[in-house]
């Protein structure tokens, strides 16, 4: 197979980037998209050109590091799959493929297709946990959890933090990511003591990071490689309003501990 690629090249955060054309031949239909990029890079290195920088690690769809916006879609056209799980047979021979980085003010570009997603870490640091120190736990079975709730919590916890929701959202909103973590812990008894505080501080941190606002379009859900549901956002909304209007606790940004 043969493809024409239009790849976003950007030297660093301070230099403006542009789409650069490449063509690649002898692509095997069973290659993953990243393996195709590997080959392109190999060709570039042999020609003495600089290879395309891109984030990737586990290449089995779980680490959340790969992050390409391919032909106008986060992680490309294959439903419920990360970029590394996208295979070239999805495309037609001779296709032109656009490859861009995640685009959001909160995810500044480091180089080419590599972005800085530390905003997600900071949101988790603001409250995406249960405050329990090592060694304090009671026996695990002292805390029964409704099976259905546990399953729902697991559905939300499956989020890999790749940022496709932000990339796909026309508003660059991070609410699917944030709501997945809030939901996971809100559904479990372990999460109850900090439930109000968590919702308030994580939302506050999210706003601080410069993500856009959710307008319930649903692109995030459609493009999420782990099929995280919009119901999580509704749950986050409920929790946030209940906490903000009802709870006596108040939280200021960066203070969610």
């Amino acid at each position, binding site marked *: 197979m043969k493809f024409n690629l239009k790849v976003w090249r950007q030297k660093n955060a301070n230099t403006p980037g542009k789409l650069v054309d490449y063509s690649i031949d002898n692509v095997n239909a069973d290659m993953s998209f990243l393996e195709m990029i590997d080959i392109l890079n190999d060709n570039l290195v042999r020609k003495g050109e600089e290879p395309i920088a891109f984030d990737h690690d586990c290449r089995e769809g779980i680490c959340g590091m790969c992050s390409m916006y391919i032909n106008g879609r986060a992680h490309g056209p294959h439903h419920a799959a990360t970029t590394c799980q996208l295979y070239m047979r999805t495309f037609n021979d001779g296709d032109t493929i656009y490859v861009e980085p995640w685009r959001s003010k909160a995810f500044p570009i480091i180089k080419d297709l590599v972005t800085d997603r530390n905003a997600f870490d900071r949101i988790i640091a603001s409250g995406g946990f249960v405050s329990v120190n090592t060694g304090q736990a009671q026996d695990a079975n002292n805390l029964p959890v409704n099976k259905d709730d546990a399953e729902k919590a697991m559905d939300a916890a499956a989020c890999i933090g790749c940022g496709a929701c932000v990339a796909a959202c026309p508003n660059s909103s991070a609410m699917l990511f944030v709501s997945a973590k809030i939901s996971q812990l809100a559904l479990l008894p372990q999460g109850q003591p900090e439930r109000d505080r968590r919702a308030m501080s994580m939302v*506050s941190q999210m706003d601080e990071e410069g993500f856009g606002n959710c307008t*319930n*379009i649903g692109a995030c859900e459609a493009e999420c490689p782990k099929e995280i549901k919009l119901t999580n956002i509704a749950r986050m909304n409920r929790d946030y309003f209940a906490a903000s209007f009802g709870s006596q606790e108040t939280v200021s940004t960066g203070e969610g501990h």
Partner: protein
Amino acid sequence: MNWFTKILTSSLGKKFVMALTGLFLISFLVIHCTINAMIFFNDGGATFTHWGHFMGTNTIIRTLEIGLIIGFLLHIYEGLLLWKQNRDARPVKYSYVKHPEKSKWYSRSMGLLGTLILLFLIMHTAHFWIPNRTHQFVEGEELPLYQMMLDIFQNPLIVVLYLLGCFSLFWHLLHGFRSSFQSLGLNHVKYNKTITFVGTAFSIVVPFIFAMMPISIYFKWIQ
């Protein structure tokens, strides 16, 4: 910032305000649509004028009208703010975007649809509400709204503009109705279908009834 303004200016707070004002405006549409539909009695505007007079003079309704204006302004202000902030959240745009099936054009275009409705609203209030209230304030009596309708909708251009307004309203409601429930956190597997059904039905029925008014008058189905 005190706690209250902090909530309302947060990203979720903005959704909250949008949803509440949106639902409030939807409730206004019900009243407005119902009373205007009185023209379909085709009784020379008698029923319509009766209820129009009630709405225009009843103290409680007049007080609520202030709330309505505030609701409109808030909804518009928040809408523009969201539009601006969301645009700024992606300073460099994608060169090529292919929207997934689930992401509907009208959901993505609420700002545009809202702006069209706003433009329509300016025209619409300039036709009826502003002259009427001004007249009430200055002269102490209402204008003959029914007759004004018959006159204004003789102009085909205005009829077309009104139809466009209704059309924008349809798409705006198609997203807005269901969306307001999601924003308020009212998403429940048992009720979602009902909300979607009612929302879709509402979005079709109300703009349709509105649209029938200028059409009926223009084609002289109503005298």
